[in-house]
Every structure is written in C-alpha cells, then in structure tokens.
C-alpha cells in the first residue's frame, strides 16, 4: 500500500513536469532557423577597431562581447552554425593596456555628471591587460584596433601594434596570415577606415600620401595612397578566399559625419559666458588694427570680429591660405605698431582667419578652445614678451589661432573625401568581381547622421552622447551601433543565401555607461 502511494506520487510528479507548455515550433528547435546555402560554420572577422568592438576610446571585454562579429556569430549559433566564435578578450572591462607594467593605453570613457553637465571622463582604475602576456591566437575575431589596410599584410605588425602583438602567432606574423590559417568558411572584412581616419582625427596633421606607393615611408597620420589601399585590399581578399571562403566586405563611411567632427560648432564662443563677453571690446579693438592691415593687403575676408549678441567663430590657423606674415608685419609697422609686436602679430596671424561653416572642429578641441595655450605663452615670453602680454596672445581661438590639430579645414576634407571615394570604388569593384556581399556603411551612416534610423523604442542618430549610435570617443559605435551593423549583415546574408537567421533587437544593446569616478560603484 505504501509503495502504491509512492508510485502514484512519482507518476503524478512525472506527469506534471512533462506537461510544460510547448510551442508548435520552438525557436530553439534544430531547423527552426537555417543558414540557407551559406556555410557559416567557421566565421572569421578581419578588420580594425570596428571589428574588434572598440568603443569609448578603449578595447574592453563587454565592448568585445558586443562587437558586430560576435553579435553576428551569436545569431548564427541560433541557426546552428559557428558556435565556437573566439575573440582575443582583454583581461578586464577597464580597457587600458599595460606594457611591462606601464600603462600605454588609457581606460575607457564613462559619462560623468559634472557641474556643467555630463562629460566623458576616463574611468579610474588600474588596467590588467598586459601586452607582453600573449593570448593564444589566432582568433575568429581578427579585428586589430588602429590597423590600416596595408598593416594587415605587413609582416611583424604585432611589434608595431600591441593589440595585434597580444595574439600574433609569431614575431613576423601578418594579421591576414593568421586569419587565413583559420580556413574560414565565411569572412567579413572591414578595413581602410584608419587609412583616412587618423589623418582626420589629427586635424589633418599628416600628409596626403596619394602618389607615394611605399607605405613604409608613411607617418601614422597620413592618408594612404589609393593604389596602396587597392593592392593591400586585394591581397587580403586573396588570402582569405584561398580556401574557397565566401564573405562580406564593408565600405568606409564619411568620417567627417561622425560626432568627433560634428559636435563642436565652428562658432562656439558664446557671449552669454561673462568671461568671454568681458573680453569682446578689447579683442575687437585689437583686431580692428589687424583688420585694417588685412584690408590693405587685399585679404579683408580674413577680418576677425567677435559678436556681443550671438555666437562667434573661433580664430583658426589655415595652412592653405597664402602666408602674409611679412607683409602684414610691414603694414602694421607702417601703421604705427612697434616692431617687436608687429613681428609677433605678423607671425601669429599670417595664415589666420575666423572659422566658418565649412570647417570641422574636432571633439578634442572643445577643452582647448578659449583655454590658455601655455606652450605658446612660453614661446612668446622666450621672444621677450612680458608674461601678461604673452598670456593675452596665447588664448586658443581668441588671440592664438586654433592649431592645425583642432581643425579640419576644407582642403583637408577634400583630401579625405578623395581618398575615401577611391577606396570605396575599389571595395565595390572587388566585392563585385568576387561575388561578395557589400555592406554600404557609408550610406547607412549618412542616413543615421541626416535623419536617424528608427528602431522599436528610439531613433538611432549620430548625436554625441544622446544619439545612441556613437560611443564617448565620438568615433566608434556603441554596442547598439554595432548591433545595427550586425543586423545589416544578417539581413544581407539572409537575402543572398536564402537563409533565415534571426536579427537582434538593437534597443536591447547599451549605449553609453553613466558613472562618476570615486565613491565606488
């Protein structure tokens, strides 16, 4: 009798637990999703920081987990493919790098609330990712922050770039060689951004190397020659496709529409700021003298005037202008200015003008504008100027023209656009010739920047901090931005290969992390 009860109880328990609700077709069932005619069993992603999942000025674990290739691989896995996508994960979520115990790359930015509103602050903490301690590569995600097109085919690049150095298989390894050794069945390639981006973010400090076919002679901020780009790109594809892999390539967005260049206005000087307003009469009186000289020299379009009723543009240094330093000095002397002052004025304003809507100020310029440039002040004092006068002539954008690094002038933008167009033409031609999916990142970013893209629960825009698309470095996407890229790719794979791979809900991916340093979590 006792046993009978036991069996009845057991049967009841078994009965009820096997009565869990079930869908007719469950998404977790094998075959619910499928990869169509695509072979996604071994996906390898090659590229730069955008492939690595770099965001907020750093590479860190949670960002890597939200890299677009990792998001894609996660969705591939739902369709039963490529569950073993590996990434060279950093050691922590801070993002900084150590080389022999010395920090060589800063931690990520977090959005910190300050007295004047939220601002990106570098997260405090000691990073633990030691470059010298190599991770065992190669990895499915071969995104190397900072890499340019030709870097991927440069032997020993790991010695130049710690991000690759961490997991290069040997001292002479190339990124693409390591990637090719994985025998991908499917690959993604997004490379070339840095071939123009580093020139752009440096405010055009580098050189446009168009016409120079030897990348070994390039500086870090130079624009890569389009033929060098094309040869590198072609070589990368050769290597990745040697084993018959199919894949996708991503073209290069217009770097000048990223928040790094669209956040600081060309006329940021606001007379409602009393410190600035108080200086306006003196500034205009001083510049009146200069403006007369400009007029005399026939360059009255360089006249400088600060408005008390509205925002004024900063004064910038434009190296594309004819240098009128010497004649300016002479005119100022003739006008009665003492020789030493006239000489300094001539040098300081020989290629100066006020910014206009065609200039792009960098995100990093925001902290420099209207700040005292101590280097300049020291230089002026070395020329014999008393401290007070030297300081007066060393205020960035007011009395000292914003240096090249803070401003992308139209001539520099043209050089970038020319290279960008040439690179994209190459990418499109190669994608076409090799039957690869081409993701139009340029068109997508243009739309995000112009009107934004709707998603359930928001609009993805390129507005800095609030737009959701870009992380706190103003250059790299947020996790939500990367998720958007992953969806673009998945949709294209579904279409081309008649596959049914689910996309992700981009609203579930984070944007910027709020955190104030100090006080623990």
């Amino acid at each position, binding site marked *: 009798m006792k046993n009978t009860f036991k069996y009845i109880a057991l049967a009841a328990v078994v009965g009820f637990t096997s009565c869990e609700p079930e869908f007719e077709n469950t998404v*977790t069932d094998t075959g619910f999703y499928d990869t169509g005619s695509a072979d996604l069993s071994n996906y390898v992603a090659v590229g730069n920081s955008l492939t690595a999942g770099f965001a907020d000025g750093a590479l860190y674990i949670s960002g890597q987990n939200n890299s677009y290739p990792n998001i894609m691989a996660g969705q591939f896995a739902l369709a039963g493919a490529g569950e073993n996508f590996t990434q060279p994960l950093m050691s922590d979520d801070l993002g900084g790098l150590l080389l022999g115990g010395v920090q060589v790359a800063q931690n990520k930015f977090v959005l910190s609330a300050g007295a004047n509103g939220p601002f990106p602050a570098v997260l405090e903490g000691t990073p633990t990712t030691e470059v010298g301690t190599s991770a065992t590569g190669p990895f499915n995600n071969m995104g190397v922050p900072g890499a340019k097109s030709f870097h991927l085919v440069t032997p020993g690049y790991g010695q130049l770039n710690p991000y690759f150095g961490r997991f290069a298989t040997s001292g002479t390894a190339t990124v693409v060689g390591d990637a090719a050794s994985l025998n991908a069945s499917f690959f993604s390639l997004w490379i070339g951004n840095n071939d123009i981006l580093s020139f752009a973010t440096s405010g055009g400090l580098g050189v446009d190397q168009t016409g120079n076919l030897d990348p070994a002679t390039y500086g870090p901020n130079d624009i890569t020659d389009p033929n060098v780009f094309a040869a590198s790109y072609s070589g990368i594809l050769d290597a990745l496709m040697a084993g018959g892999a199919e894949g996708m390539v991503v073209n290069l967005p217009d770097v000048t529409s990223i928040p790094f260049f669209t956040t600081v206005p060309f006329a940021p000087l606001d007379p409602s700021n009393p410190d600035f307003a108080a200086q306006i009469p003196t500034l205009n009186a001083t510049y009146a003298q200069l403006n007369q000289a400009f007029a005399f020299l026939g360059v009255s379009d360089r006249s400088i005037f600060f408005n008390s009723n509205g925002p004024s543009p900063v004064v910038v240094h434009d190296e594309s202008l004819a240098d009128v330093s010497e004649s300016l000095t002479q005119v100022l002397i003739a006008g009665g200015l003492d020789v030493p002052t006239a000489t300094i004025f001539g040098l300081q304003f020989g290629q100066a003008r006020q910014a206009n809507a065609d200039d792009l100020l960098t995100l990093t310029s925001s902290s420099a504008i209207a700040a005292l440039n101590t280097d300049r002040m020291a230089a002026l004092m070395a020329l014999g100027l008393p401290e007070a006068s030297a300081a007066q002539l060393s205020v960035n954008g007011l009395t000292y023209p914003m240096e090249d690094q803070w401003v992308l002038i139209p001539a520099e933008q043209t050089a970038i656009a020319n290279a960008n167009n040439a690179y994209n033409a190459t990418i499109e031609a190669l994608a076409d010739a090799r039957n690869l999916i081409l993701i139009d990142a340029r068109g997508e970013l243009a739309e995000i920047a112009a009107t934004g893209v709707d998603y359930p629960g928001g609009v993805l825009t390129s507005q800095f901090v609030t737009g959701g698309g870009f992380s706190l470095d103003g250059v790299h996407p947020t996790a939500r931005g990367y998720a958007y890229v992953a969806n673009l790719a998945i949709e294209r794979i579904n279409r081309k290969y008649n596959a049914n791979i689910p996309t992700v809900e981009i609203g579930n991916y984070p944007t910027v992390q709020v955190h104030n340093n100090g006080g623990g979590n």
Partner: protein
Amino acid sequence: MKKLVFLAVCMLASAMVYAGGYRVSLQGNKSLAMGHTGVALIDSSELVFFNPAGLVHLENKLNISAGASGVFSNVVYQNETTGAFAETDSPVGTPFYLYGSYQVNDWMAVGLGVYTPYGSSVSYEDDWAGSHLVNNIELAAIFVQPTLSFKISDVLSVGGGPIYVTGSVNFNRNLSRTLTDLEGNRSEVTIDASGVNSWGWTAGVMLRPTENLTIGANYRSEIILEADEADADFENIPNSPLTPFVDTKASAALPLPAEMTVGVSYKFCDKWTAAFDFNRTFWDVYESLDIDFADAAVPDSFNARNYKNASTVRFGLQYDATKMFTLRGGFYHDESPVQNGFFAPETPRNDSNGYTAGLTVNVSDRFQIDASFLYLHFKEVDASYDAYSENGVAAPFGGKYKSSAFVPGLGVTYKM
C-alpha cells in the same frame, strides 16, 4: 485531525496562478470539478463563496469544507525575429479554502469562509528579454468572509457578508532594457508590500421555483488593495547623479475587480445534476499599475493595463454513481481581460478553455473526500505590450506566448 489538515494547508498558502488576469478560480473542489459552477448549486458549504444565499438550504446543521489545489502553471515565450526564448520556472501555487456554515434555525444560517481568489506567481529567468517589464512577481491575497443566509420563503433566499482581505505582493523588474552598473549588472527594482488590508462585501440571492430547478445570482464587490508603505529596493544602480535611484518607500494600488455571477442548476433523471454559470468580471477598473516612489528624485512608474470587462461561461455535470462515489465533470471558457497591445508578461493570459473532472468519495455519512482536476488549455498567442516607452518613444515588447496549467486539488467535507 481536521485541525492538522487545516494547519498544513495554511502553511502551504502563498501564491497561485491563472485564470483571467490574476483571478484564481479554485474556490472549492466540488465546484471546480463541475467547471467551477456553483452559484445555483446546493451541495456544500462551498456556497459561502459561490452564493451565501444557498447556505440556508443545506440539509445538515453543520457543514465544513476545506481543501487546496496545486497549481502547476508555466509560460513559454519566444520572439521569432530575434530568436529570444524564455520559459518561466514558477513555483507551484497552493490556493486553499476553508468554509463552514451552521444552521441556526429554520430560516437562518451563519457561515465563515477563508479563501484565496486572487494571486499570481510568475518567475522568468533574470534578465530575460522582457526583464524590463517583469523578472518575477508573487501576488497573494487571503479573503476572510463572515456570512449570513436567510430564507425569505421556500422559493427565495438571500445571503451575504463583509469580506476582509489581507494581501501581499513582491515584484521585481529591471529598470530599462539596457541600464547597468559599471560591472554590467542590470539595474533593477524590487517592490515588496505585505499586510495590505482592505474590505469588501458579497451578496447573493437564490430562487427555487421547483424541487429540481435552482437559480442563483451573486455579486462580489470591487476591492482595491492600496499599498502605501511598500519597500522599493533598487539594486545595481550606476554611481551617477544621472540615475538617482535610491531605496525608498512606494505606494501603489492593485484593484481586485467586482464580479457578477448568475446561474442555474437542474436535477434530472434522479442521479444527475447539470449546472450553468455565467461570470462577468469588471476588470476595466484596472487601468494602470502606477508606482509612486516616496523619494521625489526617483521617477514614478506608470504601467498602462487597460483591462476590459471579461466573461466566463461554465458548465458542470454531476452524477451520483453509487452511494460511495459521486462523479463530476465540467468545462469553462475564460475570456481574458487583456486587450491587444497590453499583453504584459507578468500576467500573460489569453483566452482559455478549462476542462475539469473530479469525484467525491463518501467515506461515511459525515465525511467526504473531494478530488478535482483542472486542465487549462491556452492557445499559442502572438501578442505584445506596447505601452512601455523609453525617453518618450514606445518600445513594444512582443512575441509568442503559450501557457499551460494543471491543477489537481484535494479537499474534505464534513457534515453533521
């Protein structure tokens, strides 16, 4: 012995699931076995709940019924666009009841009922796709109802009484789809309230035009559970003035809607009884679940519900097979009060069909064992909750849901 049973049942009492909204229609094993009909059935002290007007017609002087059910109910969710999948791992609910009635004289009976007609217990995996709407919820309410029943004439009787409710709720959800602390832990809030008390009432009328035909009607009033001193516990909040979530008190009101039932029962062919009930539940009182946080810096939470009034039709059949056994069966169709676009995963209820069966074993003239079983069948439903928004932009949460509920119940009846 009976006392022991009662205590054991009470200790099990916590939370229960299912039926339209968070109404749990499991208020008597005899009635449940007949599709939870009972407004016109004169059989046992389950009438304290179903229609107090009938108590005065019970044959015995003292009638006691007690019982409980085990609610095995779960929900699966999936979104076929994203591949998201979730299944609840909800604890077994144990609603119970205890009714007693005593025939004072020919025209009056008194009664007392303790029962649990509302409750919900749903547990999703933490941080699942809909975690910004709910991670888990436990809602329980115990009703205590003293009752009077009067015979006006042989044909007409009335009954009713006040209802005292004591309820509790524990609710956890994430603050948004993405907010985390620096370590990546999702920011969440737990609202906990217990000892929330309120009053309501019930009244019924019964007609017995012939020996075999009974007609009943019963009304149960709306009861609003107002939690003024709930604890709001915020966890994993980033260290930032931009996220000013601090532990605080909270107030919220949860309505337990009014309910009107009319029904008939008919005895035929000596051993058969058929019953039909119609419930109308006035769910439209549940417009919104608003949580008002005491700390002014913490933004209040508004969660539209927009429930609509809903009906349930119930059929039951009883067959007095032998002196020893009485067999019962039933069916009901339960209309969900949830409207299109307001399908929140905390009470993921679409229309359902209930299939019931049960029996009574007459152990002696005085003592009966009542067993029942309910299988509640839900169709797969494609539904969404569209009233959630972030920064003023609606972020619908939708997908397919499928629920199931299996509810075995056991009770005893004692009469003398």
